């Protein structure tokens, strides 16, 4: 379509995305990996309910959403980092750190809840800042930086607490993860974690539609072009790491409430979160994927485990099934991105002749314009369209 029509202005991909009736657009969206995960969730949910009809009751479902909230929140946090082309392996350690801190510092004293939560947020920001700055300014690969912070943080927390995390925080603090709005018709209870999840999901979607989100995807898709377009890539990515650590902090606060204090809470969370993000069709290496798909990936994963459980599969086989699923999902997603998106992928190539393209990147232009704000460089456009499908 874009071959001959030079009169079509600069974002034919965007237009293609907007063509057709809402139904057609929905169908097209569900055909992409980011959309297919929602179908996967639906299929798994149906299978789970078929295996155990009790699970389909509204009360059970809302509880399931509540208990999946922390991993879904962590997955959304991890999404920001992955879509910017990086990794955050320190997430699990941050969760453990926050869990242990709340157990040790809040204790049975209600008046400490607020100051300690502020401390936890501050520590979350600090960890993200360290990860981000070491990755962007010191130029250490994020895989290595966050591996280092993972080791250092968990070691430090265990050392400072003597290795045995004890003490349960006061009940009113744990209500965040345990409680909910009671006596609601139909569902009986709406767990607070579910409410937090919805709030954060809305916030994340809004953030990704703002210039920051578009610049972030651009930075993951093509850091050079984004840099040359005038966006501070280092700061954009650093903020992604901070968002990831903050998501881990929220997950930690919920988990303390949900299950209590134990040094094993949070173990392996980084790989679960990455798995969820990847199941959501987000491409490792950055530049592609939708934030809600990451959360949906977390639900798909938990539904899968629940299904295996209800089917009576021995719990030792769970890892194997998970391994097969993620390989297949990523292989299928890769095929889908390449096949389904081929027309759109050609667009940037065509627009490469236009000023905002990677080709144009060799001659830096529009230095004054805030990069994320405009649709200037093509990668943001491309990212945006994938981001919203």
């Amino acid at each position, binding site marked *: 379509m874009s071959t001959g029509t030079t009169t079509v202005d600069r974002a034919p991909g965007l237009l293609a995305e907007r063509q057709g009736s809402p139904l057609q657009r929905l169908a097209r969206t569900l055909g992409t990996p980011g959309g297919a995960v929602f179908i996967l969730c639906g299929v798994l949910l149906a299978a789970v309910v078929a295996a155990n009809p009790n699970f389909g009751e509204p009360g059970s479902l809302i509880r399931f959403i509540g208990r999946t909230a922390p991993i879904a929140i962590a997955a959304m946090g991890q999404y920001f980092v992955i879509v910017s*082309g*990086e*990794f955050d*392996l320190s997430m699990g350690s941050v969760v453990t750190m926050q869990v242990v801190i709340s157990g040790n510092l809040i204790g049975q004293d209600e008046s400490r809840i607020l100051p300690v939560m502020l401390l936890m947020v501050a520590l979350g920001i600090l960890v993200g800042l360290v990860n981000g700055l*070491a990755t962007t300014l*010191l*130029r*250490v*690969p*994020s*895989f*290595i*930086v966050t*591996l*280092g*912070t*993972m*080791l*250092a943080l968990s*070691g*430090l927390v265990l*050392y400072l607490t003597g290795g045995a995390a004890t003490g349960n925080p006061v009940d009113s603090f744990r209500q965040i993860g345990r409680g909910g709005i009671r006596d609601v018709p139909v569902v009986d209870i709406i767990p607070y974690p579910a409410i937090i999840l919805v709030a954060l999901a809305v916030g994340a979607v809004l953030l990704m539609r703002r210039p920051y989100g578009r610049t972030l995807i651009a930075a*993951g*898709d*093509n*850091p*050079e072009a984004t840099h040359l377009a005038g966006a501070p890539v280092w700061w954009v990515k650093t903020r992604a790491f901070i968002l990831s650590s903050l998501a881990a902090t929220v997950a930690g606060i919920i988990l303390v409430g949900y299950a209590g204090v134990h040094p094993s809470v949070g173990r392996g969370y980084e*790989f679960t979160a*990455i*798995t969820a993000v990847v199941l959501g069709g987000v*491409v*490792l*290496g950055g*530049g*592609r994927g939708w934030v809600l798909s990451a959360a949906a990936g977390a639900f798909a994963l938990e539904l899968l485990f629940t299904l295996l459980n209800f089917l009576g599969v021995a719990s*030792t*086989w*769970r*890892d*194997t*099934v*998970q*391994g*097969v*699923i*993620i*390989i297949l999902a*990523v*292989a299928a997603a*890769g*095929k889908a*991105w*390449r096949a389904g998106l081929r027309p759109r*992928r050609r667009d*940037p190539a065509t627009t*490469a002749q236009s000023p905002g393209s*990677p*080709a144009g*990147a*060799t001659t830096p232009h529009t230095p004054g314009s805030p990069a994320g704000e405009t649709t200037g460089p093509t990668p943001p456009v491309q990212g945006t369209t994938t981001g919203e499908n």
Partner: protein
Amino acid sequence: MSTATTTPTRRRAPVTSTGIVFIVLALTIVAGAILTAMAGRNFFSPGNISAILTGTSILGFIAIGQTLVILAGSLDLSVPYVTSLTSLVAGVIMAGQTSNIVLGVVVALGVSALIGLANGLVVTLLDVHGFIATLGMGLILAGYLATNYKGSAGSAPRDFRLIGATNIGPVPVSTLIMLGCAVLVILLLRRTRIGHHLYAVGGNREVARMSGLHTTTPVVMAHVLCSVLAGMAGLLLLARLSVGSPTIGAQGGYDLMSIAAVVLGGTVLAGGKGNILGTLGGVAIFAVMDNVMGVMEVNPFLKDVVRGVVIIAAVAVYARRTAGRPPRFGRQSLGDAALQEAR
């Protein structure tokens, strides 16, 4: 697309990191000798040198393999499980009989080669990111191990256990075998066509393909060799433990530690740049650090803190030295999704 504009300029970055690795290693040894002396010990005593070298051998095998995979632009997170599986397979086949040693070794290495082949094919043919392909393979093996092996199994005959317990002077035989493998891999990388292709494909798969290289073969080979070397580590662990163990690989945390050692050795995580010598230096740095912290009786939790900080700090030093912006893992500048996912 953007390939033409961005990548070629990067390839000119000076490759000096191996030199830095050995400077860091020398500094570590000096600091270690001083700290050991302060603890009233002799760092250079035969027993201590033997202990350090023993500490290098198992991580060494795995890190050599990991270097190949990383050079090819992939990753291998399944190594701990391959290690555990081979120790069990070989141990069960040997069942304490000297006559079964050869069979046990052959079957165990065959199994690991098959796993590596599967990894390589998933990465190349299905175009799955190496991180995910091998994370998935690791999970598959972990489930198999947990379901089928309840605790240690099999038994290594005495002759086989000698491999893990014999020293020539202060040098353990296991370390010599590891160094032998390192020499073979160095020759492979420097002297053979496929070795050169490995660098080319890891550096830029698209350019390598357009230059007429068969891009699949080097990547698959790297994965197969990596798994086989992880299998060798499993065999050595079998010799040292005398039994196969389903958790021995995970206990050592060899997946992440081997990647850390490779990067500590100056190899670029995005692939295409680095060498085995640097990796051996990285492994040695870890071994010396662990030895010194052991002598100083550092709290085990603090050991992890030190390891974490050293990893970040050392790699930051290399990154400073490398001119320009070094390619990052999974960087998107090539603008080609197929290429992205393959890395």
